[in-house]
């Protein structure tokens, strides 16, 4: 954007962020777990701007959720995900090292509840879940962009919204719940590029929905007609004729002209007639 500023070039920035998923306790657990697996490890093994970055759920519900996720991972990738052909590898050794250091940070390394296996030679990291890592750990400060999933627990599911709003605006936010009030509250209170309720990632496949960020997750959007608009300048064109010229538009300005201009701008036809009647032709 700084470079574009030199030439006053407009930009669309599709960036990233930490996309949260809030899980309420009244959900269909099996479907929820599969959709989270789809939105995390099936999306380029977490290396996607709209992957679920971290989960927020209640303290009570977390153990059930972790079990369901463990099962979901096994259903999709088998008992040893490192052997599965259905999971992407990490893109480069740089990123592998980056993710490794996120995993090995002293604040989090003992919080792993699922996975943790890695193979540097093959650039593979297994789907890994952490429980309740500290808010100031690297895992919770940067966009993960990998197969590591922290689960943060709160007392009440509504507290999750304050937590999300205390961080930069993400590209996507997800909520799983059957509670309509919570859905409305979430939609109204959380600002993100886009959001999906009771699913992950799919909102970007709907061409009638704009795909783009807000705040630190970017500016501008595309998909569907938004794509055409993103690369178009909408030129305003006004066609007029020579007839219907009114000298009230032009100087010298007189009190009569002032009255008429007021009437015309205010739009009231009655006032215009009154002003016209009191207006002398020049």
């Amino acid at each position, binding site marked *: 954007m700084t470079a574009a500023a030199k030439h006053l070039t407009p930009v669309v920035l599709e960036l990233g962020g930490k996309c949260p998923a809030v899980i309420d306790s009244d959900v269909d657990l099996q479907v929820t777990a599969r959709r989270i697996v789809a939105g995390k490890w099936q999306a380029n093994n977490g290396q996607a701007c709209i992957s679920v970055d971290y989960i927020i759920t209640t303290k009570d519900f977390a153990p059930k959720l972790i079990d369901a996720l463990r099962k979901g991972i096994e259903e*999709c990738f088998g008992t040893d995900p490192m052997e599965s052909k259905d999971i992407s590898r990490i893109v480069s050794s740089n990123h592998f090292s980056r993710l490794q250091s996120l995993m090995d940070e002293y604040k989090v390394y003992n919080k792993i509840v699922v996975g943790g296996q890695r193979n540097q030679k093959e650039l593979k990291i297994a789907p890994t879940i952490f429980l309740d890592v500290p808010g100031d750990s690297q895992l919770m400060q940067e966009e993960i962009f990998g197969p590591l999933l922290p689960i943060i627990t709160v007392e009440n599911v509504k507290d999750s919204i304050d937590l999300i709003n205390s961080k930069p605006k993400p590209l996507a936010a997800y909520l799983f719940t059957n509670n309509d009030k919570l859905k409305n509250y979430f939609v109204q209170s959380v600002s993100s590029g886009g*959001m999906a309720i009771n699913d992950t990632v799919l909102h970007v496949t*709907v061409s*009638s929905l704009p795909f783009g960020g807000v705040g630190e997750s970017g500016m501008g959007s595309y998909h569907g007609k938004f794509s055409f608009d993103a690369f178009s300048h909408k030129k*305003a*064109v006004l066609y007029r004729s*020579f007839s219907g*010229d009114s000298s009230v*538009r032009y*100087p010298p300005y007189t009190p009569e002209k002032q009255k008429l201009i007021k009437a015309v701008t205010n739009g009231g036809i009655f006032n215009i007639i009154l002003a016209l009647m009191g207006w002398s032709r020049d």
Partner: protein
Amino acid sequence: MEGLEGTLAELRDTFKSGRTRSVAWRKSQLRGMIEFVQDNEERIFQALDQDVGKHPVEAYRDEVGVVAKSAKLSLSCVEKWMAPKKGDLPLVFFPASAQVMPEPFGVVLIMGSWNFPISLTLDPLIAAISAGNAVVLKPSELSPTCSSFLAENIPKYLDPKSIKVIEGGIDVCEQLLQQKWDKIFFTGSQRVGRIVMTAAAQHLTPVTLELGGKCPAIMDSSSNPTNMKVIAKRIAGAKWGSCSGQACIAIDYLLVEERFASDLIDLLAKTIKQFYGENPRESTSLCKIVNKNNFKRLLDLLKDPLVEASVAYGGSVDEEKMYIEPTILLNPPLDSQIMTEEIFGPLLPVITLDDIYESIDFISSRPKPLAIYAFTRDEKFKKQILSRTSSGSVTFNDTLLQFLCDSLPFGGVGQSGFGRYHGKYSFDTFSHEKAILQRGFFPELEPRYPPWNSFKLHFIKLAYAFNYIGLILLLLGLKK
């Protein structure tokens, strides 16, 4: 600056509290805006006269009237604009609903300009309010009477917890630009526009830049001579009748075929006398040059000997009164400053061409302007102008009026800026359109999940093509 950071923190808290998001708040502020301009009309006229010598008719037409009209439109439409819009969903997503919901960006910065110091600060403010944002308004320090008038009176009519006016010069602007804003709306020069965008880039803040450029007017030979008087008035009105040429959409220069040039100049000269009398210096209908810097800049444009020699009408100057007579020049050199920079003053170069169609290449070989004006009845020529030039807007057979149409977006392209406002575009410019997809838990589509196989690939291919019959056949085992 502690005061500024404290102010910003207060606005962030206010925005976070949700105060600015309700329909009731937005409407109350818009009503407050209407009351503000209606109650203070005379004082606004006086302030504008003080800063730029603007006559009350111009002041009403371009400033007070614009603000009142814009606030009334927003007041009547804001609820409709705020409502989420349903998105079309293909059957393959069933059951689901898709919506686009506009939401405010948050705390926004609006930087106004000095030539229309009321409307170019308050109209964007109306836009920001109708979209539900908290606002810092920074009027231009080059129109100090209007700036302090706004600072003193806006808090009396609008919510002081959510809308703040901050005055000051370059140092205050610099400090403002260092802060993190959720959106910046800037009206002003290209030079400062670059500075604003560079500062915004540090925080990934989206910006709208309403800049300027050299707005050309084309006069076609096919114009009926009896319409010439109307054309001359519209040209003169769009040059000297709009803040004495100090307007982003003022006509900067004219293009005309050589054989019509002298008649046109004569007619323009007559029109100037008609508008401003024999001695325009005495006219109250002509705005003054805003300050010494701009006066000197304009004088320097005329000092070039070849430019001076091209003066066909006017040209007199009173340095003490910072007055420059409405001036017409005939063919100043194309590489002179008057033809390479935005003039922003009462000097009108007339450039002659052999064939009026040459105007298209002339304009398109130069930076894209904010507006193009073309006086012509040649439909083929109109189509060519539209397809072979690019500008913020094009107006045929008239001038300036595009600014008053709420259904037309007002904004630039290329060096004349990006982003736009007026009418609903105003609301959109200060809104983030959030995409929302709502789904149920049932049914579940197995092909969404690994382990992958060729069946699932086939399924996804058919789904992307919306080939529902194919999908059914596949599911029934009847498709390979």
